């Protein structure tokens, strides 16, 4: 179970942006999608969840661990949250090889020195994701899809309890997307940890999501039983548009 209550105010932008979300993701939701237009607070929520941004107030709970609670004065640092984060641009370390990237969470100040045990472990994760043959390459020698897998391998090798994927396909062209979506789904299906994926592509939601949270202008609305709602519509686009319109009315009415 993931419970999120966040408030964060940005007065420096025009118009001022306020993130104000409060919801619970049930434990049976293995793959949750945050869907909404850009600038609606999806990425900010993930950043707060991962501990990269500190909210003004709120409460973040992952399972029975309290990660943030302003009232209780709890704020666990990003490095101790055990939350894997896959960045939009994958954020692979360009000065390290694929293997050294994958082993980063388990090496020291000099990530070029990987012990034999960690080398085997990182190699095993790479093999599991089907990129064992790329271990010696540098990130800039890889294709977009390969980079994505390396980022995934690196995050998984840190043994996270939750995986966050920030628009995993936005750096790829449309033809690749189709194939990689399927591949990523297979990888996620093999994981025991839950994953949250940010997207503004309805097809991503259709393929991935058990649970759906709609974002709009800093507000979030979880859709109860979204799979059931989906069956009533011919296309996922129609369904999401309908849900989004419904979500908007009470907020603005």
């Amino acid at each position, binding site marked *: 179970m993931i419970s999120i209550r966040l408030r964060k105010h940005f007065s420096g932008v025009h118009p001022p942006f306020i993130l104000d979300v409060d919801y619970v993701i049930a434990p049976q939701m293995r793959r949750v999608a945050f869907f909404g237009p850009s600038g609606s607070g999806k990425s900010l929520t993930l950043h707060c969840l*991962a*501990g*990269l941004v500190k909210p003004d107030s709120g409460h973040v709970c992952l399972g029975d661990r309290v990660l943030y609670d302003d009232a209780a004065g709890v704020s666990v*640092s*990003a*490095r*101790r*949250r*055990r*939350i*894997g*984060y896959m*960045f939009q*641009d994958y*954020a692979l*370390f*360009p*000065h390290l090889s694929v293997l050294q990237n994958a082993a*980063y*969470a388990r*090496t*020291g*100040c*000099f*990530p070029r020195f990987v012990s034999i045990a960690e080398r085997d472990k990182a190699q095993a994760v790479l093999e599991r994701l089907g990129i064992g043959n790329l271990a010696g390459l540098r990130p800039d020698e890889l294709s977009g899809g390969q980079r994505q897998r390396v980022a995934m391998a*690196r*995050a998984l090798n*840190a043994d996270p309890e939750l995986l966050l994927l920030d628009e995993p396909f936005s750096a790829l062209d449309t033809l690749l997307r189709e194939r990689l979506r399927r591949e990523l789904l297979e990888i996620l299906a093999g994981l025991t940890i839950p994953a949250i994926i940010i997207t503004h592509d309805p097809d991503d939601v259709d393929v991935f999501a058990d649970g759906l949270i709609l974002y709009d202008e800093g507000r979030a609305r979880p859709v109860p039983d979204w799979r059931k709602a989906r069956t009533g519509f011919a296309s996922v686009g129609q369904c999401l548009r309908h849900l989004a319109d419904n979500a908007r009315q009470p907020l603005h009415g």
Partner: protein
Amino acid sequence: MDFDWHAVLTPLGLSLRVAGLATLISFLAAMLAAWLLARKRSALPAFVDACCTLPLVLPPTVLGYYLILLVGRRGVAGQWLNEVGINLIFSWQGAVVAATVVVFPLIYKSARAALEQVNPHLENAARTLGASEWRIFISVSLPLAWRGVFAGLMLAFARGMGEFGATLMIAGNIPGKTQTLALAIYDAFQSGNDLRATRLVLVTSLVCIVLLTAAECLTSRYGKNK
């Protein structure tokens, strides 16, 4: 030809030693400062940043004067140093102190600029992978900024080789003890020893050219197979 090569080699060795040590000390201090100041943005870091840049714009004689106030026999730190048996005035260690202060901004400025160029996503990625701030600095930020840092080091070393004003005020101009290349040139020129001055000038120029060329080759070669 009965030229005394020691008259060239002694100041050269001293200059290399002073510039090398000053660069090393400044490097460590500048890294610490850049790391600390990159984290927080408020009025205090802006003031500290200005202070770190100050030696670049102040005349070396002003720096020398401040340093004498600080580490001189009656200086704040100087009295304490005296008690533990260290005297920086008129010693080559004093020359190192002077050069350290003078070259510090060169390393600090270029390191700071290079560190700010590093994609913050990479540092955030390291954070989510469980790395401490210090480890992120050593394993991600610094290796990615090393070209800028290295360029700063080279500039600092070359500048340290040529340091004159502050060194003269603190360490004096004692042949064989604190007389660096720059001081020896001035000394030779003043005493009308043109041959010696010419040789010293040529040696200084040569060392600096070799240094800067080597630095250029290193950075461009590593840049290609990055």
